[in-house]
């Protein structure tokens, strides 16, 4: 008579949590938080470079996500959706700071796999990324670390795709200078 059962077997456990959370179930939302907080905090920390601000942004991300859950399309990725909110939270925190110098559009930012000529200590490369200017670091983190395409990263950052590519080009140049080696793409 009805295809109810078949329809719902297609919804994975995360979509089920979203349904429950959007109905007001805070425990379901806590499970979403437990599942995604590390990845959200990781992004916020790399974008803000400050653990306290990153924690604030992470909190803000989940609070805003809770408020907007009713508008979330379960067919899209919850992780990506949370990252979009996190990027907005980080950019909003930064909004009071000085503006970055404009960059020319349409430079090629390269592929997604940013390889190093020789292996580098994690802390050394984290420090090099930390030292990048905000715009270049944002683009690098989203594209090279979290694997978003140029288009996705540009959308998240509210930039033209060409500008995002230019920021990546700038990040590559600055990393090369700081690490003293080429940073290529596969």
């Amino acid at each position, binding site marked *: 008579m009805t295809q109810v059962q078949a329809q719902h*077997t297609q919804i994975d456990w995360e979509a089920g949590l979203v349904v429950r959370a959007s109905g007001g179930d805070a425990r379901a939302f806590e499970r979403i938080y437990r599942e995604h907080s590390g990845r959200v905090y990781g992004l916020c920390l790399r974008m803000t470079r400050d653990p306290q601000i990153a924690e604030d942004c992470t909190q803000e991300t989940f*609070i805003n996500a*809770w408020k907007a859950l009713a508008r979330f399309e379960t067919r899209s990725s919850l992780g990506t959706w949370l990252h979009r909110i996190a990027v907005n939270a980080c950019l909003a925190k930064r909004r009071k700071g000085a503006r970055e110098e404009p960059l020319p559009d349409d430079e090629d930012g390269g592929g997604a796999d*940013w390889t*190093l000529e020789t292996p580098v*200590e994690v802390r050394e490369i984290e420090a090099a990324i930390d030292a990048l200017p905000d715009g270049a670091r944002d683009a690098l983190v989203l594209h090279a670390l979290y694997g978003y395409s140029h288009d996705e990263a540009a959308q998240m950052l509210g930039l033209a795709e060409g500008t995002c590519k230019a920021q990546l080009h700038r990040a590559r140049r600055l990393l090369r200078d700081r690490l003293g080696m080429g940073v290529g793409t596969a």
Partner: protein
Amino acid sequence: MKIKSLGELPQDIAPTRDLWPQIAAQIAPSAHPTRLAVTKMTPAAARTARLRWFAAAAALACLAIGMWIDRSLLPLRTTNEGAALSVSTATPSAPASLDVAYVSDPRYQRQRAALLKTLQAQLNTLPPVTRTKVLASLATIGKAKKDLEDALGKDPGNALLQELLVNTYQDEMRVLTDVHSASNAGEGI
């Protein structure tokens, strides 16, 4: 540890403290997402919401008609006449996997399963006219459930649809219980 690609850097970094307690405090009942969604709708979202309200209202109207038919007929049962009639097309489906508290309650599940098990036999004890209309009611309820499930599939966070779905399951249970009571009362006559 040394790495050879930026892609090898960890994506997950644990915060230095558990942020959940403060988040939980901020999402207290006053910040319920579905209520906030209504107040922050874009024009396009508002149009979609109007359509959903219309769909929900239509489903509710179907349900109300089914309930009216059901409740106006069951008390009229007088005899045990009537041949067997298949309920395969009208037997309510298994509860959806939506985790609505009422539907997922094991007591509800057990009671519903028991009533469904005896439904066919009990229907056979009802007068043909009554039986036909009970089946029509159950079919209407089934249709309403499917419509609501479909609408919830597109808009899982819609509190109204969730509430209507729970109400529909409750109405289905009421019909099954009424059939059970009417059948048992007939046996005692």
